[in-house]
Structure formats: structure tokens, C-alpha cells
């Protein structure tokens, strides 16, 4: 019976493709680090689900946004829970993505033939930042207003196109009626659509190449290259034998499931213990509004602070170049080895960049909370 159902579908859908995908070999070593990608996917899925349900009540209008959020948190059954899930999961997502990028960088997994996987990953990263930024405005409380203002004015410092960028994004010179609907459209539809397409491509490429390490299938090509006199050092490959790998299903799916379960439990726990109320803390009197960016923008905020007066555009251009540089890493870091120990320069630079970002964020945090 089960076999006949399977065959029915196989004939019409082509199950063998999916079965082959599940059988794709993965390296056994370091397999827990490979769960970071699927952990990211778990949280993104959670964002899509909780976000879709927030849309049932949220109204993207300057007059009603705040009230509708208040209604969600205070009156809709489990509204506070879904909203807090959405926010906590977003926060966790930035940490998990950071770890995923770090593991991919350290293990040299962005090298040939996986450059495109990395490039798509960098685009994904930009998109996620965009979603986080546009989402920050939707509560439309005074903090949201100032986040938007600071962001718009930051853009306005770009040489030549700055003011145009600010107006194009805010829908006018300042944060107002037209800003909210734009950010809403970007946050709930445009950017998630882009993200969905990019993630699909990302996953396709991962399945095409197999995870880093499981490159046994390239062995013949390497022999051929060597026979042509190409030096072995310039051919990137790892020494994996079949007994060092195992199929994706069930071992890796099992690990991924455990991680997914732990993450969702964690988000749920945080949401229950520390739910987000419509007002972050006390409602400050108008003269004492202290705008607070989301923590994942703290390092950028801190960085820009070190470029006062006429230097502001320089700080802005530098940090933009940093983000624009991400997709090019596979073409700059071309060391033949993948092992982090055997390419110490990249490993050290990578670690320093992460440390630098974390220190900047911590300094910003200290400044913001001591003010």
C-alpha cells in the first residue's frame, strides 16, 4: 500500500529527486557547525509565520499603527506572544546569521566552487538587514520615529546622491505619513520576496555542491588536473573518503531538528518571560526622548560617531564599502588551503573584524544605557 502511494507520486512528481537530495553525503566531522544554516532557516521561517499573523491586526498608518499594536499586545489572545516571538526571533536571527557566516568563513567553505553560494549569502545578509531596519519603524512610537529620522539623515550624507536617497526612502524629506507605508511594503512583501528567492538559490547551490568537505565527486577532476601538470596546492579540495561522510538523512536532519526545537523553545521562553509591551519601558516626556537603535545597528551607530563634522561622509562611505565588499571575499581571499590553521592571515583578520564589530556594539551599548 505505502509503496503504491509512493509510486503514484513518484510517477507524477518525481520523488527520486528529493530522495537523492536526502541522500547527499555530508562530512561527519564538524557536523554540528553545519546546523547553523538550518538554524537560520528555522528562525526565518518563524519570522514568516509570526509576521503573517501580525498582519491580521496591524494597520500601517501613522494614526492607527500604535493603537493596533497595543490592541495586539493587550487584547488579542496570544497577541503579546506572537509579537514577542517575532521580535525575539528577529534578535536571535542576527546572532545565528553572524555565527553561520563566521563558520563558513573560517572553514573556507566559500572557496571554489562555492563562490556563488557565498555571494548569494551576502545578498541574503543585506536583505535581512533591510528587513530588520524597515521593521524597526512599524511600531510607530517615538523611538521608531527617531530611528527612521536618524537613518534618513545618515543616508543624506552620501556624496551627491544623499538627499535624493533620503527622500526616495522616506517618501519626503522627513519621516511622515508616506514613510510608514513604504517601510511596511518593504518589510512585509518586497524584501521577504527577495529573501525567499535568494534562500531558494542558496539552498539549491548547497545541494548542488554538497557541503564543504563532501567533494569526493571532484576526485576524478582533480586527478585529471594533476595529470595536466596543475600543482596540487592550487587545487582546492579536502581529503574526504566515503567513510568520513554520511547521508544528509537521517543523521543531519536529526541534528537540525534538535537545533530547531531548541531555538523555538528558547524564543518561546524569552517571549513568555520577557514579552514586548507596546511601550518600551516608560513613556518619556517629549523633551526627554532618547532614541535607541536596535542593538544590531549599534556597531554602525558607534562607528559613525567617530567621524564628526566634515568627516561624516567618509565614515559612511567606509562602512558602505565594507558591506559592499562582502560578496567579493571569495575573489580576494584565494589562498589554496581551506583549513583555518593553514591560512592564518585570513583567520586572524576575520576574527579581528568580528571582535571589532562586537567591541563597537558594546561601546555603543554602554553609551546608550548610561546616557
Amino acid at each position, binding site marked *: 500500500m505505502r509503496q503504491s502511494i509512493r509510486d503514484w507520486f513518484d510517477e507524477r512528481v518525481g520523488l527520486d529527486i528529493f530522495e537523492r537530495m536526502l541522500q547527499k553525503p555530508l562530512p561527519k566531522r564538524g557536523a554540528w557547525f553545519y546546523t547553523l544554516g538550518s538554524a537560520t532557516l528555522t528562525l526565518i521561517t518563524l519570522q514568516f509565520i509570526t509576521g503573517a499573523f501580525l498582519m491580521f491586526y496591524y494597520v500601517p498608518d501613522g494614526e492607527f499603527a500604535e493603537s493596533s499594536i497595543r490592541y495586539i499586545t493587550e487584547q488579542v489572545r496570544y497577541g503579546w506572544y506572537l509579537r514577542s516571538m517575532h521580535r525575539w526571533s528577529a534578535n536571535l536571527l542576527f546572532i545565528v546569521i553572524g555565527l553561520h557566516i563566521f563558520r563558513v568563513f573560517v572553514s573556507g567553505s566559500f572557496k571554489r566552487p562555492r563562490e556563488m553560494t557565498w555571494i548569494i549569502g551576502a545578498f541574503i545578509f543585506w536583505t535581512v538587514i533591510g528587513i530588520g531596519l524597515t521593521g524597526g519603524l512599524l511600531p510607530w512610537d517615538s523611538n521608531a520615529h*527617531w530611528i527612521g*529620522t*536618524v537613518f534618513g539623515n545618515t543616508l*543624506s550624507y552620501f556624496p551627491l546622491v544623499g538627499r535624493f536617497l533620503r*527622500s526616495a526612502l522616506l517618501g519626503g524629506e522627513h519621516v511622515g*505619513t508616506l514613510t510608514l507605508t513604504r517601510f511596511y511594503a518593504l518589510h512585509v512583501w518586497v524584501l521577504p520576496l527577495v529573501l525567499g528567492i535568494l534562500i531558494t538559490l542558496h539552498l539549491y547551490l548547497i545541494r548542488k555542491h554538497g557541503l564543504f568537505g563532501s567533494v569526493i565527486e571532484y576526485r576524478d577532476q582533480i586527478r585529471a588536473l594533476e595529470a595536466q601538470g596543475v600543482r596540487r596546492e592550487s587545487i582546492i579540495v579536502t581529503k574526504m573518503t566515503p567513510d568520513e561522510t554520511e547521508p544528509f538523512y537521517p543523521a543531519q536532519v536529526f541534528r537540525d531538528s534538535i537545533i530547531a526545537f531548541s531555538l523555538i523553545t528558547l524564543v518561546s521562553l524569552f517571549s513568555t518571560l520577557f514579552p514586548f509591551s507596546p511601550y518600551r519601558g516608560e513613556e518619556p516626556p517629549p*523633551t526627554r526622548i532618547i*532614541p535607541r537603535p536596535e542593538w544590531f545597528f549599534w556597531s554602525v551607530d558607534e562607528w559613525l560617531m567617530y567621524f564628526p563634522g566634515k568627516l561624516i561622509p567618509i565614515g559612511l562611505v567606509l562602512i558602505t564599502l565594507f558591506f559592499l565588499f562582502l560578496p567579493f571575499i571569495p575573489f580576494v581571499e584565494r589562498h589554496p588551503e581551506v583549513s583555518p590553521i593553514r591560512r592564518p592571515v585570513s583567520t586572524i583578520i576575520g576574527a579581528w573584524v568580528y571582535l571589532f564589530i562586537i567591541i563597537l556594539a558594546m561601546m555603543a551599548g554602554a553609551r546608550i544605557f548610561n546616557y
Partner: protein
Amino acid sequence: MNQTAEEPIGRRHFMERAILSIFGAIGVMLTPPILGYILSPVFRIREDLSQSTRWAPVAPVSEMETVGDLPRTFDVPYRVKEGWRVRETSRQVYAVRKGGELALFSTFCTHLGCPTAWDDAKRMVICPCHGGLYNNFGEVIGGPPPRNLASLEYKVENGVVYLKDPANVYEVGWKDPRKRA
């Protein structure tokens, strides 16, 4: 993919060109309306801006006369036309007496636009965002702000001080929309 005998190279070429042209034409047809649609608020050519407040009352002259050389904060309510809506809102301005003359200046930090506040104890205008500091006349004395707080135009009419163009909140880059309307 295979070139058949009945399909000469010319025909294939033609179709390849045609496919490119077709998609090019689709792009050309769709791009201008989409861009125009998204950027419409930037150009605001068809907006009726007469509904924004031109001159907003700040305070009676008698009250302004009590202002000394330390800035005092005033709340200025005004209307602003934004797309399809006329919004009632308000902003704050500082008033200070400078060389015997009344001066109004903006509370918005010239760095990234955060709302500053006069600190009585420290005798400075302080920006909460990145610690921009200004003196009592709104001149930068520390932190990242590139310029002094914007001084604002005002007029006195019938014993009331009016602020010009209150909707011009971030003097950085403001263009008077009425010139296009």
C-alpha cells in the same frame, strides 16, 4: 539546441535577437512607471501644498520678552501636507535673546537629526544620540554635529511671534515645495 538542417543560422539568430528585444521592450515599458510611482513623493509636482502651515504661532511677544540669554523651549503646533493627508503635529524650537535680539533656532541636532534638549545644570544643549553639544546660542561646542543648530526665520504680527515654514524640520536639504506647486 541542435541545429537542424531546416533551421538555418539566420533564423536562429533572428529569434535570439527577438527574445532579447522582447524582454528589453517589456523592461522599458515597465520601468518608467514603476520608478515614477515609487519616487513620486520626491518630486511632489502635483501636490497642493497650500494646506501646510506657512507661519506657525510660537508665543505672544509679551512672553518672548521674558526670555533671556539662556534658551527656552517652545512647542509649536502646525499642519503639514504629506501625500494624501494633512497631519497635525508639533515641533520644538529654542528661543534665546542674542545681543538684545530674539533668535529662534531648531532643536534638531545637525548630526543625524535627534531631538536635543537644553540642560540647565550643564548649561549646554545636549543631543542624546551621540553626545553632540551646543552652547546657549546653538553653536557646536563638541561631538559629531557638523553645523550649528539651524536658526529659524520668524516674524512678529499682532503681538505674536510666528515661525516660518515649521514643516521644514531638517534644514539639511529642505527645498521649499511651494516653488514647484
